[in-house]
């Protein structure tokens, strides 16, 4: 399978996945064919390459929200690599899923305690407007609605202790636009 990496100046590099660490034959030549990058160590969170005797260790992060991107941390510096394989490329070419215009659920990515609630069920909410505040790690954070619409669900009250990604409220966009 072909794997394509897009560089910062939009040039691409192509790899055949069979050449990438399939066992003991892990040599991967670099520009000019003169130097080799050998795969020394790999698991789902760390890749260590050796080039010219120098080790390069990368911490690997994958973000489900950014499927075409691999985040690599090298010496505490973060880099994002755009990667695509031929299966993804053909899927993308045939058109992606249309954006959902459904209700927006509000949640916090962090556990915390609900402090202030500014809206009640039935209120209109503007995109970017704060619906409630949540205290986490001694900081008060505003939870804002990403869409304009009506608050049709509120599942917490001040003082409620909430878990990460727990649904706190829901805003349903106005049905006017197409």
């Amino acid at each position: 399978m072909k794997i394509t990496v897009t560089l910062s100046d939009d040039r691409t590099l192509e790899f055949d996945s069979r050449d990438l660490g399939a066992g003991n034959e892990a040599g991967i030549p670099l520009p000019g064919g003169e130097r080799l990058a050998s795969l020394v160590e790999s698991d789902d969170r760390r890749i260590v390459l050796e080039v010219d005797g120098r080790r390069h260790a990368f911490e690997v992060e994958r973000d489900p929200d950014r499927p075409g991107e691999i985040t690599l941390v090298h010496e505490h510096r973060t880099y994002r690599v755009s990667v695509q394989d031929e299966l993804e490329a053909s899927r993308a070419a045939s058109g992606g899923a249309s954006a959902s215009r459904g209700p927006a659920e509000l949640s916090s990515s962090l556990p915390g305690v609900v402090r202030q609630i500014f809206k009640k069920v039935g209120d209109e909410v503007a995109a970017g407007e704060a619906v409630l505040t949540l205290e986490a790690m001694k900081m008060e954070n505003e939870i804002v609605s990403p869409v304009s619409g009506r608050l049709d669900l509120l599942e917490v009250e001040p003082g409620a202790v909430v878990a990460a990604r727990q649904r706190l409220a829901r805003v349903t966009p106005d049905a006017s636009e197409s």
Partner: protein
Amino acid sequence: MKNSPRTVRNILVANRGEIALRILRTIRALGLESVLAHSEVDAAGPGFELADRRVCLGPAEASASYLSIEAILEAARHTGADAIHPGYGFLSEREAFARAVEEAGLTYIGPTPANVRALGDKVAARAALSEAGVPIVPGEREAVADLASLKQVAKRVGFPLLVKAAAGGGGKGMRIVEDEADLESSFRLARSEAENAFGDGTLFAEKYLLRARHVEVQVLGDGRGGLRLYPERDCSPQRRHQKLFEESPCPVLDEKGRTRLMELAHRALAGQDYRSAGTLEFLLDEEGEFHFLEMNTRLQVEHPVTEWITGHDLVAEQIAIAAGKTLPATTAEASRVEFGGWALEFRVNAEDPLRGFLPSIGTVEEARFAGGPGIRVDTACRAGTRVTPYYDSLIAKIIAGGPDRATALGRLEAALAETRITGVHTTLPVLRALLDDPEFRASGYHCQSLESRLASPEFLLPAPDGELEAILAVAGAIAHRQSRRGTASRRRIEENVPAGDLSPWARLGRSFQIGGPS
């Protein structure tokens, strides 16, 4: 049985994490006994193991444990402690706590309740110091009771305005107000944050000085007018008024400026009979003028840099003062502590700098820290440490010292290379970015510098050079392939793939070059 107020033999530490461990170490070094008062989720870790005795205060929520005066006093009674060290944060600047400890017949290792009332309260301190002839940041000397009063201050002092919690510290309960439109929501949020963090929603407002440096003076008093003035610290690299990096001395202060600063500090505390450790915080503006900000009547997070360049153990000094040690009451000049060399400190927080510094909750898998000449790491974090949402996100402090700033920076750079923490996100990439910034290396930052750099994506997402980019591409392709195959186990792969025409690339007749002819 009531102890005499000077007995300091069995000290209860009412705190957690790195500072509890740090205090326990000095207690042990002095040959004294220690008790660690901890919450249910802190019943583990190096501090827990080092203390002679341990008492559980209550559940994780700070209000039920580290902020519970009754629970702490009960813990002291139960373990026969004769003194209490509050650490920083929590109750360390609460007048009621200092008083309760003393009324219980115990020795409080910190200022007197009167000191806290006069100097720890931000509004009172500004008024007192202004009376004493110390320049303060332009603003309202009194607390802002309501939105209308805040509007009055804004009209008088102008924007940008800073709204702060009177009972606060550590950057919490502070809001910058850029213009009239933001006043109401800033007032509301600052009040709420202040109530929740400090139990007191009182606010005050002052002018927000741009491009100033945060410069502070560590003091030690004996409660009878005797005073020591330590060399200043520069804590300018901040984000949302929380310090990320501190150093001592200040890179842009000359001896003349230092002398002036020490005179101001001395004047600020004249007649106050300040006891124990405290820090006077100032803003150094672009004209070289100092403006008093506030005083923290406790030990601060960044105290290690002062310890490094003076050789003093500030916790040991606090204990000695509490046990009755006196200091000479003399001139500002004669109260100054000698120092040598330079020290830097970076705060490692469990936060994801690429997601708006979102606190990272989880279990630390690996925690590897540096060592060697001039390196000190204050941390209670190790493999297995659980980072919970109940407390602040500081998990370690990396301190590097040397005979000069350049040496200290070099050592800090080496320490960073050796440091590895996995399992939670950390702010180590910010230290990397600071050390990569030539301006930071030359002379440090002013108070807005870090935030303005964080506003540019390149600060934390630097562009790689050509060679690194090629290597990254290979690593990225490998990582992608792993995702496809669901590779999860660690495998060692042998090296020694021969160069030239035996390589799989040459065999397949395929080659690629970056920046060269195809």
